[in-house]
């Protein structure tokens, strides 16, 4: 079954086509990565999928329902949660209170929401920091907090916007298994990611966005060897030059 489907999504900002006729489908249970050079429109695409921006044309279907034009909170209530590339903690509140805001989507009782926050914190490795104010967390901690809050809404689909960006290699190695465990628990994941090591080890399938268009999709290994992808990152003609000089891309 298809969890998320986009058909012909487009949005322009002034003269720039930020997302230009993107169609994609993410089947239930998949961990799909969305990659592309800076300015490719990845975060804008996430905003279109999660209702933070309304597309000028095209449609989004989530879990069998058309959600185009719906407000973000309503889409979240249907089971689509997102994180932000630039972390957005409720800085004055404790880690537990931050996560409880997400938990309240499904739990009315304050006590239940706080208890569920503890449980989610354990899943993402924040159990030791529950009483700290969110502002006291390191960048890695804040990324985990983004993940925890989204997870606390009990989503069917998670859109992760660069949860590994800004982390050092040890921190990345610590978060990768967390993401894998989320997928293994039955949550479908679509993640924007620049850390290719993580993409290669995590993703079932990779979508490549460049200049607002999807230029390639396939299994990670094939994508890494795709000349179109190499050129999108390194410039036109690079693939051919690399091939001539005998070096693998």
């Amino acid at each position: 079954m298809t969890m998320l489907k986009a058909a012909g999504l487009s949005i322009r900002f002034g003269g720039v086509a930020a997302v230009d006729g993107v169609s994609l489908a993410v089947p239930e249970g998949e961990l799909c990565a969305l990659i592309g050079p800076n300015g490719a429109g990845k975060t804008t695409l996430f905003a279109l999928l999660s209702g933070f921006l309304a597309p000028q044309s095209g449609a989004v279907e989530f879990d069998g329902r058309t959600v185009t034009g719906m407000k973000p909170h309503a889409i979240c209530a249907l089971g689509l949660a997102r994180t932000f590339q630039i972390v957005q903690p409720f800085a004055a509140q404790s880690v537990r209170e931050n996560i409880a805001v997400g938990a309240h989507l499904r739990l009315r009782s304050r006590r239940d929401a706080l208890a569920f926050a503890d449980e989610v914190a354990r899943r993402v490795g924040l159990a030791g920091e529950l009483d700290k104010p969110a502002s006291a967390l390191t960048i890695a901690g804040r990324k985990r907090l983004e993940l925890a809050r989204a997870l606390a809404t009990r989503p069917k689909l998670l859109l992760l916007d660069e949860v590994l960006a800004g982390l050092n290699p040890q921190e990345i190695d610590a978060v990768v298994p967390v993401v894998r465990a989320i997928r293994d628990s039955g949550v479908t994941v679509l993640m924007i990611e620049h850390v290719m090591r993580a993409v290669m080890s995590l993703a079932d399938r990779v979508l490549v966005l460049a200049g607002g268009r999807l230029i390639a999709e396939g299994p990670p290994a094939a994508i890494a060897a795709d000349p179109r992808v190499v050129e999108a990152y390194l410039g036109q003609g690079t693939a051919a030059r690399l091939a001539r000089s005998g070096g693998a891309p």
Partner: protein
Amino acid sequence: MGSRAPATGLGRDLAVVAAIATAILLLPLGTQSGAALHAVILTLLATVLGQGWNILGGFGGQFSFGNALFFGVGAYAAAVLQMRLGINAWIALPLAAAAGAAVGALVGALAFRYGLKGSYFALVTLAFAEVFRILANMLPFTGGGVGLMLPLDTRAAAMQFASRVGYLYLIGAFAVAGFLLHVWLRHSRFGAWLVAIRDNEAAAAALGVDAFRVKLAAIVLCGALTATSGLFYVQYLHYIDPNIAFGPAFSVEALLGPIVGGMGTVFGPLVGAIVLHALSESTRNLVADVPGVSLALYGAVLIVMVRYMPGGIMGLLRRR
């Protein structure tokens, strides 16, 4: 880590409310002085005003600069219902609160529908208070600029009391209701959503929080509670006119208390009201012979407090 749910402080908050209620109840045993009781009554009136503002501004981060709007609507609703329609004051109480809630819903629906925030929202509340002040001056049933004088009828059945103790208990009851509302905010899903919107509206929306509805509910609660303080004013002082009801004095009083006491805290409005009233009394006593100097001193102390205690007095206590 145990499986026990973390302590939330609900019991402690309720205990403090019970202690405050007891103190108000027992106060007449300590003093029967009219001046002392009057000072406490005005402090509690400022507390209720501050509580109304604190729901929307302190918890919700939507700074109203025109809360006199709700105060005035409550005051005029109380006076008009009793004097023009012969409705009993106790029945006018829920009606005045409903009128405050309705005006809150109107302002909120307009302002929040169009995403007004920060200074724009403050200006809109200020403008609404001004519009109502002009309306109160013009409309026939409000008595125009002359105002309305509530006839004396010192029976508890008419919500008027021969002794100040009756008024102390009345405003005390409103304040305790306001405290319980605050305790509920501090320990409920609605309150958690409201604070989340204050801290980061986009992040709250991404977590399923319907910011428009939550803010609308907050301004409705703010309007209803603030309107009861307006009703109390009319019952206690028997007079209201457009400048008192909708002028800037009560708008400023409503926001100063919580800001000085601690925005978004359960007891900040009370602490702020006590400190501000003590401050204004002592500056007045200190330089009684030169008119105006006491106000300048009051203002200077306020600036220092806001500059060096951004979290208010409650914030200062918590850090220690």
